[in-house]
Each structure stands twice: as structure tokens, then as C-alpha cells.
């Protein structure tokens, strides 16, 4: 089930560096208790007279209903563009406008299944709340985390606490095995009887995992990352081709129909184009 989003003026509680990322904690009364694993929030950036008007979307790493200062959200920020750099430079007591919870959360199994959680880079952020929720349901949780280098992994210590088994892969071999997280996922699939995969990370990783899941007959729930302007479903910028239950391919909004999609529903190869079979695709004559 989904909660109606709120718009709340949040206050930064803390901001600390974790490897290549910034972990920010925001006091935002009302939102934390509504967050389900996989929901995201959309922040405004740049302060009152900002010239960067579009919202920035972030997965929720932790949501604390009650704290010393009221409900808090913890977000993992990878600073690169104007907005994420602004967020990474925030000091305590600065205000940030937050909208959330947004998007559809990860669907949770009714039975105590064996789940594999796969995170690429900061894509691990939403997997910790998910792991907690799965373990509360009696699920066995394995996790595979991957990144280019050790500093781009997030939450490896935390991961040991919330999982039954953890694999780590880095491209440069600076932590865990050298290689791709999908290779780590493959070896887990080969030795364990995985019922479901949950994944969050770069699109190529999600695409590869969907293929891998298909090979082993395992459903892959993917939290995608498409460029978003509003986060609430009104701008139509965040679309990707998804096959619906009626078998029709539509350009679906990842902010309201996602960000979590069943991997086998997404036309991964066609992202960045409009596949011909899409409902209302331009006819060849219109090009």
C-alpha cells in the first residue's frame, strides 16, 4: 500500500562523509513513518532564490519515526551535478524542502523466502530497510554489493549486520573480489536456492541481473533510476518502456509506476528509444 506524499520543510541534522558519499540526516516530521523500503523522496536544492528548480530524487537509507529531534530520514548523496553538490555541502540547521514518500515500494513476499539483494554503488541505500523488513518476515537475506572501487561501496559494515551472507565485488579489486557484482550474484545463485532478487543500481546492472534471474528462473525486482524533474508524476520526463499486465508496452513513469519494476517487464535494450510496439509509437512515416 502507498501513503499519500507530504511536502515538509526539513532541517538538516547532520552531514558526514562516508567514502565517496555524503550521508545526510534530515528532520522531516511526518514523512519517516510513511516510508516503505524502496520509496524515494524528492528534494528541492539551491535554497530560496535557487536557479536549479527541478527536484532531486533520493532513495531512503533509513527512516526513523521518533528521534531526539522528531522523525528523521537518512539519505546517501553522491555529489556530481549542481544539486547534489549543494546537498553535500549542507550544514546543520539549513532547511531543505522534502516531498515524500514517493513511488511504489519493493513488493514483499508473504512467505519466508530466501532473497538476494543486489546493490551497485549508492544503489545499496534502499536495501537496508528492505533487508530489515524481509528478516522481520522470517526471510533469509543474502546481499551482493558492487562498485567501481571500495570508496564507492556504501554500507558494507551495516550489510554484515542485516544479512545472512554478504558478497562484495569491486572493479579494481580494492575490496572483496575483483569483478562485477553480477558475477558475485551468479555465484550466489549457483550455490543457493534463491527465490527472489531485489536490485538497485545503474541501469546496465539491472538489465544484466534481469537476464541472470531469467537464466535461474528467479524474479528480479528492480528499482530503476531515470532522470526526473518532478518526482510526483506530472512532468512525463522519467519514462521508460514497460510491458504491462495487459501485454501492452507503454512509456511508463518511473516516479509513480516505479521506481520498482519487475525486471522482466522492462524493455532494457530499448531505454533511450521508443520501441515500435509501444502504444502510440510514431509511425515510420512520421520520422
Amino acid at each position, binding site marked *: 500500500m502507498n501513503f499519500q506524499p507530504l511536502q515538509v520543510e526539513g532541517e538538516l541534522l547532520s552531514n558526514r562523509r562516508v567514502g565517496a558519499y555524503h550521508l545526510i540526516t534530515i528532520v522531516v516530521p511526518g514523512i519517516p513513518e510513511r516510508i516503505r523500503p524502496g520509496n524515494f523522496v524528492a528534494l528541492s536544492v539551491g535554497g530560496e532564490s535557487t536557479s536549479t528548480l527541478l527536484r532531486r530524487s533520493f532513495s531512503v537509507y533509513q527512516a526513523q519515526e521518533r528521534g531526539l529531534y522528531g522523525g528523521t530520514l537518512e539519505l546517501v548523496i553522491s555529489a556530481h551535478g549542481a544539486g547534489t553538490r549543494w546537498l553535500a555541502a549542507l550544514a546543520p540547521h539549513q532547511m531543505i524542502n522534502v516531498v515524500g514518500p514517493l513511488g511504489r515500494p519493493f513488493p514483499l513476499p508473504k512467505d519466508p523466502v530466501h532473497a538476494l539483494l543486489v546493490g551497485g554503488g549508492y544503489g545499496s541505500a534502499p536495501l537496508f530497510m528492505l533487508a530489515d523488513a524481509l528478516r522481520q518476515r522470517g526471510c533469509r537475506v543474502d546481499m551482493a554489493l558492487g562498485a567501481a572501487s571500495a570508496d564507492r561501496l556504501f554500507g558494507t559494515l551495516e550489510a554484515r549486520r542485516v544479512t545472512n551472507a554478504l558478497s562484495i565485488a569491486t572493479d579494481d579489486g580494492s575490496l572483496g573480489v575483483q569483478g562485477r557484482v553480477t558475477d558475485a550474484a551468479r555465484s550466489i545463485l549457483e550455490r543457493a536456492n534463491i527465490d527472489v532478487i531485489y536490485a538497485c543500481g545503474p541501469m546496465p546492472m539491472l538489465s544484466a541481473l534481469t537476464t541472470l534471474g531469467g537464466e535461474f528462473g528467479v524474479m528480479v525486482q528492480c528499482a530503476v533510476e531515470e532522470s526526473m524533474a518532478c518526482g*510526483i508524476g506530472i512532468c*512525463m520526463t522519467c519514462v521508460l518502456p514497460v510491458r504491462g499486465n495487459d501485454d501492452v508496452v507503454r*512509456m511508463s513513469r518511473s516516479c509513480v509506476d516505479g521506481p520498482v519494476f519487475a525486471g522482466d517487464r522492462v524493455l532494457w535494450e530499448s531505454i533511450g528509444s521508443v520501441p515500435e510496439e509501444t502504444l*502510440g509509437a510514431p509511425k515510420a512515416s512520421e520520422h
Partner: protein
Amino acid sequence: MTSIRVVPKGGRGVSAEVNLESKLGTLVLPSPVLTASGCAASGKELSQFVDLTTIGAVVTKSIMMSPRSGRATPRMAETPSGMLNSIGLQGPGIDDFLEHDIPWLASKGVRTMVSIAGNDVEEFGRLAARVKRAGDSVVALEVNISCPNVANRGLVFACQPHSAAEVISIVRRNVGGAFPIFAKLSPDVTDIVEIAKACVDAGATGLSLINTLLGMVINTETLKPALAGVTGGLSGPAIRPVAVRAVWQVHAALPHVPLIGMGGILTGEDAFEFILAGASAIAIGTANFHDPSALTRVQKELSVLLAERGFSALQDAIGFAHRKV
């Protein structure tokens, strides 16, 4: 045109001391604040943040006859105080729209202006006829003849007076009588007044000014255009002075024609600027992405500002900047 369309008043949210009533020809709205087409979908999502019955009207995303996928991604690039979009009129088509979106808006009591877009003159005519029969919640039609996200620039009807007039004529013919029709114009023309006049002569009740400006961004990492559609429409505060200029020019030439002003409105003060330039109503687009409660906020700020400047009614402020002292 003597019949007055009486529209239920919004009531709450509008400051008591300033009368915000907005007259658009025979259409009377309790507030001048509208959504800009394509920046509010069909209202449902924004209704989580704004009581849509308290604003003037929801202007729906431009709808076409058939379902339309829109363009490939990336569809968006942020620009200084604005954004570039090339959505390409993604939508479910008129049947689905009339079956789902309009009944929802009607059930919530939301005054609705339906925006239509056609590939050709005929399609505009057929869409207008369908929308006319869509029920009482539809208070007006906006005719989007200015979408920049089409494959052929030559197909932007609002770029030529005769093609603009051709579309408006068939729409007027098909809806008949005094049903309010607003022609939405592009600022990317040499003389917007000439196009405005052609639309009014062809039967438009009023004009919506302005649609986005055609723009482009190049990604300096990929060394390629940032948008899959190469060019896109520029919106947001970056275009506000262009929009205010368009409203000013058209109001000066056609002082009795109601104008809906838009382009970069973020605050009540921005809205006030458009009113002073000659707009009878204003629409909020890109600002909804920044602040999903922008509609309510701008309405309140505008009301306060009108009172501060000594206006007891919005009506008295329209075009005030044109007055000779």
C-alpha cells in the same frame, strides 16, 4: 455572446478582502490561477498537494485523437532558472481521456479547461467536437497550436496567421456559440500580435500566452545534444520577461480580449506582473515541479500583494501598467 456561464465558486483559500474573480469572456472563474497544460497531467497527482477546487481551473495536458508514446529519453535538461523538455505530447488519446480523466475531475468538482492538439486541422476539429460534449466540468477549450516538440517546425500552426486561423475556425465551427476557446501561442514568431489578431478574428475567445521557446542544450561529456529529440521547449523563470512582453504587446493591441498569461511564474509577485501587463488569468507550469503546492501559494501571495497595492479586485489591476498617469 450574452449568456453568462456561471461556475461554482471555489470559496476557501481565497483571501476575503480581495475579489480574485477572473472574467474570461463569458467564463467567470473564482480565481485567476490555472495550471499550465502539460505541467499538471489531469490533476490527480497534484490534488495530493493542492485543493484543486480552490484554484481557477485545471488545464489538462494537451490531448490528441490517438494514444501517443511521446519521444525517447532523455526528455529533459535543466537550464539556468528553467528547463528544456521534449515530451512530445505523450498521452492516452481522447477516448481514454474522456473515459477516465474527465469523470475524475468532474467527480471532484474541478473546473477544467481541456487542451487539445492535432496533427492537422481536421484532427483539431474532431477533438473540439468530442470535448464540447464532455460535460459541465469542462468550462473551456485551450487549443495548443504551438507545441514546439513536433518533427516538422512547419507544422507549428501558431507560426503563421493563416494556419493559426484555420485551426481556430474549425474549432469554433465545431463547438459553436459562445463556448470559450483559448488559442495557445508561441513566442517564436516575428509578430505575435498578428497571430493573435488572426486567432481572434477566426473565433477565439481569448489567448494563452506563451508556450515554450524552442531551445537546445549540448552535453559537453557525451559531445551530443542533451535531449534525444535534439531540440526542446524552454520554460521556467528564464522565459518570464519574454512572456510578459508577449502579454503586454497583445493586450496593447487587443485590450478587450481576455489573456491567460504564463511563462516562469513562481511567486504571487510574478503572477502580478502578468496581470499588470494585461492578463486576466495566469497559469503555472514548471513551478509545480519545483513546488507541488505552488498553485495555492501563488494564489495567496497574489491576493496579499493586490491588497498591499490597494486593489480590492483583481479586475481593476488587469493591464494597469498600460495606464497613462
